[in-house]
């Protein structure tokens, strides 16, 4: 095993040595022929269409709030309306042929003076996949709830693998995440939010592992939205003590408060910010790693020919499989971590500090341990 790995490593190193020139070649490739290069980044950004590659491409409607509400069935029809224009064509008007040219950048600007739109409320593919995740959660757990309502699992033991598996996760989250952080008395108020968080994020994470699937959580906008809901959940339920610790930390000299208050206020926002960035970065990194690994096959093909490319494919595909398995784990882990920290922040906001002033430091101490 070690010998095989060593040979594989040396093989890679050997290929790398001669690769600098060829690499430069890849970089200089013009975007005019995008089919030729391995464009990883374009696979990961948000888009205003859903593409099932090789099958069909479905354009999503554009909703623009700028000088009134505008609704178009697709980006192209928005361009053809004459009110808005794709930014690329605004900068390169000679390339635009009305009625023929499709959108390129998908960023719409006003046709007359090129100013950006006020608010782009268009539905993007990440929003659609987020909705799918929400609907899937609603479908699965709505059916589960109906089972419970009919008496199975209420008076009897749960029946069936699905119900048992779902119950294991729900009970684990309820006991280990919600109850242990928020407490026995108030858990019922926050468990629905945290369970929704966990399962919707989990399904979003797992969608990215399906063929044609997308991971909306690999988009900072989506994770930011989720973190903002946690922010509201925390701060709308904060106790008097919680706010006192922000604006008048007890047991701290008055002069220190000049420093403490800004830090504490900053802390209110860094918590959800960290939540958003952690989830987004992890999901994006996994996705990027898989695409990069598979992209290596094509880069090697370009550098050394088809034979070497396909031959080294064995290595890249096995690496990809490894990363893929890791991603399945990370999908669960990141959903759990998001839920866990949301519960922790809510629990901190609900905590009654009157008996002990040093509780707040505990969760802060925990934070560095979660680089994942």
């Amino acid at each position, binding site marked *: 095993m070690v010998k095989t790995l060593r040979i594989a490593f040396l093989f890679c190193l050997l290929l790398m040595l001669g690769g600098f020139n060829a690499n430069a070649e890849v970089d200089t490739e013009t*975007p005019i022929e*995008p089919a030729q290069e391995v*464009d990883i*980044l*374009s696979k*990961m*950004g*948000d*888009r205003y269409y859903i593409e099932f590659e090789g099958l069909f491409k479905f354009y999503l409607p554009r*909703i623009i709030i700028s000088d009134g509400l505008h609704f178009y069935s697709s980006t192209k029809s928005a361009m053809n309306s004459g009110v808005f224009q794709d*930014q*690329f064509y605004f900068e390169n008007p000679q390339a635009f042929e009305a009625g023929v040219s499709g959108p*390129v*950048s*998908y*960023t719409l600007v006003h046709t007359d003076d090129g100013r950006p739109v006020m*608010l*782009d*409320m*268009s*539905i*993007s593919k*990440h*929003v659609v996949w*987020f*909705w799918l995740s*929400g609907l899937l*959660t*609603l479908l699965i*757990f*709505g059916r*589960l*709830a*109906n089972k*419970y*309502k009919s008496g199975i*699992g*209420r*008076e009897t033991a749960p029946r069936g693998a699905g119900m048992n598996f779902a*119950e294991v996760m*729900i*009970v684990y989250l*309820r006991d280990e995440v919600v109850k242990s952080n928020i407490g026995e008395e108030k858990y*019922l108020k926050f*468990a*629905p*939010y945290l*369970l*929704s968080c966990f399962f*919707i994020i989990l399904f979003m994470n797992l969608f990215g592992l399906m063929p044609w699937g997308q991971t*909306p959580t690999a*988009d*900072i*906008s*989506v994770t*930011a*939205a*989720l973190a*903002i*809901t946690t922010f509201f959940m925390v701060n709308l339920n904060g106790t008097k003590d919680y706010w006192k610790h922000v604006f008048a930390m007890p047991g701290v000299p008055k002069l220190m408060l000049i420093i403490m208050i800004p830090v504490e206020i900053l802390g209110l926002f860094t918590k959800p910010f960290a939540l958003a960035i952690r989830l987004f970065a992890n999901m994006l990194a996994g996705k990027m790693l898989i695409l990069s690994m598979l992209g290596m096959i094509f880069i090697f093909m370009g550098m050394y020919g088809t034979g070497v490319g396909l031959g080294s494919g064995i290595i890249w595909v096995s690496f990809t499989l490894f990363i893929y398995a890791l991603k399945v784990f990370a999908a669960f882990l990141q959903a759990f971590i998001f839920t866990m920290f949301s519960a922790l922040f809510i629990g901190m906001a609900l905590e009654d500090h009157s008996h002990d002033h040093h509780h707040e430091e505990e969760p802060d101490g925990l934070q560095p341990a979660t680089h994942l």
Partner: protein
Amino acid sequence: MNPVLANALLNFETGIVLWVGITFVLFFVLLKKFAWGPVLQALEQREKSIQESLDSAEKAMSRAEEISKKNDEALRQAEVEAQRLRKEAKEEAEKIRVDIIEKSRSEAEAVRDQTLASIEQEKQKAMLELRSHVAELALEAASKILNAELDEKKNKKLVDDFIDGLSKN
């Protein structure tokens, strides 16, 4: 720069944040009403009923234990009582036996005494009779021997004195 990349990766799209945020709250409300509410409630109810049945089983167990303890106690007491009764009965029987033996012995003694007394009496009587008889016989013999001279009364007195002298000896 590839124009497609203009909308990629680190773009913070307010519209998407709004869509996701609003729909997430909507999903949360729907999930709370149709999924988590009933599920959590059912789980709690089931846990409560399990806890209750465990508690009642515990209670029944302790009650059964108590009852069995009581039964044991009663059994033990009954045994002690039975033993006591048996001992008492034995003692009484012994007493009765002793009594009976005593009584029969005393009775037998009484009978013997009586018999002895009556024998003595009879003997006395027989002695008396014998004496009178002997006196008569002696008188007759003496009268036969002495005949007429002798007064019968005087003779009898003589003989009686003689016999008294005999019996005193």
